[in-house]
């Protein structure tokens, strides 16, 4: 088998195992959480008969291993079942909100890269300068500030005081401009911490690469600094940042929940959060499954991108 194919199939197998492990762990956790899902869902007006009936409809009367097997069976057939409360297919519920979370994540990570990488490059190419010190203070401040605090401040400044940007929702369907405008504050509030991380990481890795012998050689050949930094050094210095981005996308997918709640946006985070509060486990499982899938796929892509960034990391024939 071609080394790349072998590498890829190995990674895919690991990915599948991670997904199975995560979902099994989640199932086990549902045992530890107190609260009868049926009575929580039906609320104080529910009769014992209605609670028992709902518990049966949710499959809560079956043993855990049976429910787990049933869930994997549903996943395998692409049918995650029907939500007992709304009567809607769970897969539809998840797929309806998934684009909002993915868009928010991409916007946030994109913004973090667009700001963080140049900030890190500037700091690395001007070490010890006033700009470097300012960038350091800004980066650490961004990292230290909790996202929800940033979100509230952004809302106060841009929505209330300046009245520039709206507070609620994801925008009118079909109105791209409205959707973009309503994406600004949530994505900035999510991105700010990552700007700091990426800037600090970029600075340190670029400084390290700029001290490598091949860079000194390039300078000795009289190649302009700008070309050395952006053509030769940046690509190698980017590897740790790309690795962090892979984790970042995963964390943002799961962590977008606070932005979704504060900005009242639909998304996987709010779907899962609401489902946890009501112990609606089938929806929780479906939501978490999708997040886990996206997380492991992103990391798979990141792993594969190492090879593109650094030929030394490409799978070789005869090398395990």
């Amino acid at each position, binding site marked *: 088998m071609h080394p790349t194919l072998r590498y890829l199939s190995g990674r895919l197998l690991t990915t599948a195992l991670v997904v199975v492990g995560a979902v099994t762990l989640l199932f086990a956790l549902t045992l530890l959480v107190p609260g009868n899902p049926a009575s929580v869902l039906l609320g104080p007006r529910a009769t014992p008969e209605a609670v028992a009936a709902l518990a049966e409809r949710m499959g809560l009367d079956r043993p855990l291993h049976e429910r787990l097997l049933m869930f994997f069976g549903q996943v395998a057939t692409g049918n995650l079942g029907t939500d007992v409360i709304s009567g809607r297919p769970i897969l539809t519920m998840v797929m309806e909100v998934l684009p909002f979370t993915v868009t928010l994540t991409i916007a946030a990570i994109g913004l973090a890269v667009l700001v963080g990488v140049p900030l890190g490059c500037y700091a690395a190419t001007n070490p010890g300068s006033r700009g470097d010190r300012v960038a350091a203070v800004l980066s650490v401040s961004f990292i230290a500030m909790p996202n929800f605090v940033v979100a509230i401040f952004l809302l106060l400044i841009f929505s209330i005081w300046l009245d520039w940007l*709206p507070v609620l929702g994801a925008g009118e369907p079909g109105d791209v401009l409205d959707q973009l405008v309503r994406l600004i504050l949530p994505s900035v509030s999510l991105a700010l911490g990552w700007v700091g991380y990426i800037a600090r990481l970029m600075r340190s890795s670029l400084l390290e690469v700029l001290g490598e012998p091949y860079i000194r050689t390039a300078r000795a050949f009289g190649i302009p600094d700008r070309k050395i930094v952006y053509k030769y050094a940046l690509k190698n210095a980017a590897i740790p940042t790309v690795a962090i981005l892979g984790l970042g996308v995963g964390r943002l997918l799961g962590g977008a929940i606070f932005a979704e709640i504060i900005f009242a946006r639909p998304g996987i985070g709010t779907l899962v959060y609401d489902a946890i509060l009501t112990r609606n486990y089938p929806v929780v499982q479906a939501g978490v499954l999708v997040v886990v899938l996206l997380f492991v796929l992103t990391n798979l892509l990141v792993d594969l991108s190492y090879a593109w960034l650094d030929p030394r990391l490409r799978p070789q024939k005869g090398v395990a």
Partner: protein
Amino acid sequence: MDTTYSRRSVLRTGAILGGAAALPFGFTGQAFAARDRLTVRVVRDIQNLDPANRVSFIEGNVIRAVCQRLISFKPGTFEWEPDAAKTITQVSPTLIEFELKPGQMFHGGYGELTAEDVKFSFERFRQPGPDGKPHQYAKDWEALDRVEVTGTHTGRIHLKTPAPAIWLVTLPDGSGALVSKKAFEALGDKVKNTLIGSGPYTFAEWQPNQRIVLKANPDWKGPKMAFNEIVLRPVQDPKTAELAYRSGELDFTVIEPTGAKDMARVANTKVISQDSINFVWIGINVEKPPFDNPKVREAIRKAIDVDQVILAAYNGAVGRAKALVAPGLLGHWADAPVHKRDVAGAKALLAEAGHGGGFKAKLTLLNRPAYQTAGVVVQALLAEVGIDLQLEVLDGGSFWSAGNGDAGKNLDLSIQRFGGKADPAFQTQWFVSEQVGVWNWQRWKNPEFDRLYAAAASTIDSNERARLYIEMQKLMDQSAAYIWLTHEVNVFASRSWLKPAILPNGDDLQFDKFTDA
């Protein structure tokens, strides 16, 4: 590194940033733009619009705007008036006759509302659902025997037993919603998220977790609706709702009582504060030692200064409750005793009960700020009489299951809050013996209370009913298992041009009766 900034690059960057900054202008304040659209916050998204299986008041508010009932509440009160019914009469304790107004059409081309639809709408509560299980609100029509259709627009509701509460709890509420038999048969399971009614608003659009749109029914023959469109926006976080209101994206929202003063300063805003009929109390598990000793329960009641607890928890925004049924409702016990704090008396009772040295106990409560503050105050007050109280703060999912089944035997004290309805039969139903292990977390069983409850539920005479409910509250008071805190207050922020219609329980909004003041 050669890094230079030319005048051109600086100007270009500035133009981009300026453009980006200017871009959003005009996107806020949409709620101000046209008065024919009203934007209202709902605290969560709708889940099931089938009247028999609605989840809570969120769905109920939508159902009542879209579906007519035989009778409906007048704006902001629990007084009813005919709605779809031209006439409706209680002929005998178990017989109600009605005549529908002619020409009331269902939305979506499902034809005219007839007595057959009334029969279908009510009798389905007593029949099992498609999966053979009972409907969630089946109990609302427990007394129903059958609906007899006597003509296209006339019929009779036969009851198995007298049920005066259906005039306030069932007929004018979600369980009295008149649905189209034809639509239910055509839509099947889709009735959970499609609503066909004959009311003043149509269920026009639902984007899950984004918005629900109600549009004025063009075929509506009643008074013209004040708004062509009512948009309901699910906003969970109260602070976000407050900011969205301030930015003009919402016209009406429930707010925290503690935020009322700040919101009143917002331009074009009126803050509406109305006493509620809900009830918050500290319950004591009478089965578990040492609380099985009435002297211990009485000592705890004497040790707690209710005024101090609610002042701290609600910032002085609510009044004190003296009994279960709130003022203004039938069965309110106006002369209920106001228990004053008496530390010496509490210590003496504990000593008499053999607990002079105090003991450890647990207070289970929901993780809402008001209850947590109340818990801390109660903890401090009980410490003075030697009771070492631990707080068990739980999220909604865990809390609302804490008293279920055998788990409830482990409860000591708990802070609970139940919503109220217009009839005391609703408020008192949770405290009967058969509710032990369900919602009677005090596990207090009193055969006389149960007897009075059954008698009151089937008594037609209002004065007699009131007397029975007061007797029941006296028994609760004698048990010392209930320390009533407050009936709460409902606070809303509303545009000054809006005249909302809110039923006294504060949860039930009458969208069809919202007007432009």
